[in-house]
């Protein structure tokens, strides 16, 4: 029997104190309450604000769609498309780079899994601004990288910052751990005996990857891709700092509307557009993911 299945079923209510009829709801309630007040309520407010007249700070009774018209009329959709392009490229690149790494952690060096996970996920615990700052010192003209390339004739004094590829690099760098960990969880669901069987039946490496490993780890891959896509869709600092001003991101527009323009309703409407796409994608994708199986796979390995 699979352990993650007997987990929740084997509980016998008779053994629990009679006061608590529904222990799951009882234990989850504090979290549900906290998230309702400080997460759901703010979201409702932002939706309400998005239907207000432009430039107001108090909620009024007259509702309008003017702010959403600005999204189309004032060219905000073009920055949205830029952000979407950045997000797609970042997601694809991050997956290609993270998969072999995750594979190595789970299947090749399982002994060192914990230390490798810590080393690879650790950057998350340092403010991303600080890390991006570290990269600018590497990449700027007169920085570490241009010092290294300086030995090559014709490659002196190169500016590596302020171009499109460097933005992608920065985003891949920032979001890599968010892809890695879900894919690690996914790969832990891959059954070695299935791989063995496929090899016995004459499958080559590519076929094993395509027909066995990817389908069996699909839930982790899906969560990883979703996480990276959604987070990079809402990112701002990478493009701002590493890219200079060559690309304006949608998040920058939102920030701008709230801070410099002092137009809360416009900023809210832009946020609502971003959130609708984000939440829609998540809810659709999560329907197909068995979270118990994905998170329980690690337990199965013991």
């Amino acid at each position, binding site marked *: 029997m699979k*352990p993650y299945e007997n*987990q*929740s079923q*084997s*509980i016998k209510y008779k053994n629990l*104190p009679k006061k608590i009829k*529904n222990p*799951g709801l*009882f*234990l*989850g309630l*504090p*979290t549900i309450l*906290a*998230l309702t007040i*400080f997460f759901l309520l*703010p979201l409702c*407010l932002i939706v309400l604000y998005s239907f207000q007249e432009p430039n107001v700070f108090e909620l009024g009774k007259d509702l309008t769609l003017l702010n959403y018209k600005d999204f189309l009329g004032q060219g905000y959709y073009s920055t949205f498309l830029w952000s979407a392009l950045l997000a797609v490229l970042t997601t694809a690149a991050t997956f290609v780079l993270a998969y*072999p*790494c995750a594979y190595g*952690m789970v299947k*090749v060096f399982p002994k060192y899994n*914990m230390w490798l996970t*810590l*080393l690879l996920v*650790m950057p*998350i*615990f*340092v403010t991303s*601004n*600080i*890390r991006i*700052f*570290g990269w600018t*010192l590497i990449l700027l003209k*007169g920085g570490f990288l241009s*010092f290294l390339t300086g030995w090559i004739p014709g490659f002196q004094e190169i500016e590596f910052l302020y171009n499109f590829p460097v933005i992608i690099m920065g985003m891949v*760098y920032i979001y890599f751990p968010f892809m890695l960990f879900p894919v690690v969880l996914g790969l832990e669901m891959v059954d070695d005996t299935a791989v*063995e069987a496929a090899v016995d039946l004459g499958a*080559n490496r590519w076929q*094993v990857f395509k027909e066995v490993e990817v389908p069996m780890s699909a839930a982790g891959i899906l969560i990883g891709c979703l*996480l990276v896509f959604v*987070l990079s869709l*809402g*990112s701002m600092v990478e493009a701002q700092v590493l890219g200079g001003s060559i690309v304006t991101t949608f*998040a920058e527009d*939102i*920030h701008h509307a709230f801070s410099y323009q002092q137009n*809360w309703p416009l900023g*809210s409407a832009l*946020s609502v557009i*971003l*959130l609708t796409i*984000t939440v829609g994608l*998540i*809810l659709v994708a*999560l329907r197909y993911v068995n979270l118990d199986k994905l*998170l*329980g796979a690690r*337990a199965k390995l013991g």
Partner: protein
Amino acid sequence: MVTLKKKRAGYKKPLVAVYILTVIFFLQAPALSLLVSSFSADKYFRFPFSELTMKWYVEMFNSGGIRDSVLNSLVTALAVTVPATVLAFLGALAFARYKWRGRFLYQRFLLLPIFFPQMVLGLAQLLLANFMGVNTSWITAGISHMVWLLPIITMVIAIQVYGFDVTIEEAAYDLGASTAQVLREVTLPVLMPGIVTGALFAFLLSWSNFDLSLFLQGVDNMLPVYIYGKMTGGFSPTAPALSAAVYLLSAAVLFIPFWLITRMENS
């Protein structure tokens, strides 16, 4: 466990090792760059440096602005860690341990904040504070940190809960243990590694948060926001030293407990 023969597995072990080490280098490169830069005596950044110095570190310890922001961040992170860990422990049991109506919905609801663009979440919470007439301070910043990191550490603990053999708990009940006893003697000790990891993550995620603090800290300047101010608006030679120190501190807070735990397990 079936081990694949090297040839059949289709990978070369040294190659995989080199790849993983390259990725680690890529991910940790900024730490190296910050650390090296922090010793430059030059007012403007240029490598190689004309002279090396420790004076930026000395300046860092004497700065009142840095001391205040460190204190603000520390107090907030500690204040967030305790309630977040308690809620996450209970929430993880609801997530992974019990089957109940609404669990499917609960699991998805809980995951939502992780997927949220932090800036939008921060702005939305600023609207709430404004709506309720609350002045922003380290308290509002702390609450916003909690909403965002609670789901993450609930996941961390939930992964531990999935591996938890519930029959031990039942056995304890059958032997006449009370709910409190079972919690104290069975559930908590078994789940302790997950809880400690969760608490550690909560502390570090609050300590290093920038996007939410920026909107919700009010007058209580947090360290990441302070450093951001030093980074922008021209190159300030204290910025690399401060950044390197923060980077190494986070690494130490994360690695030392794990190192201690593995040492304890081995002896």
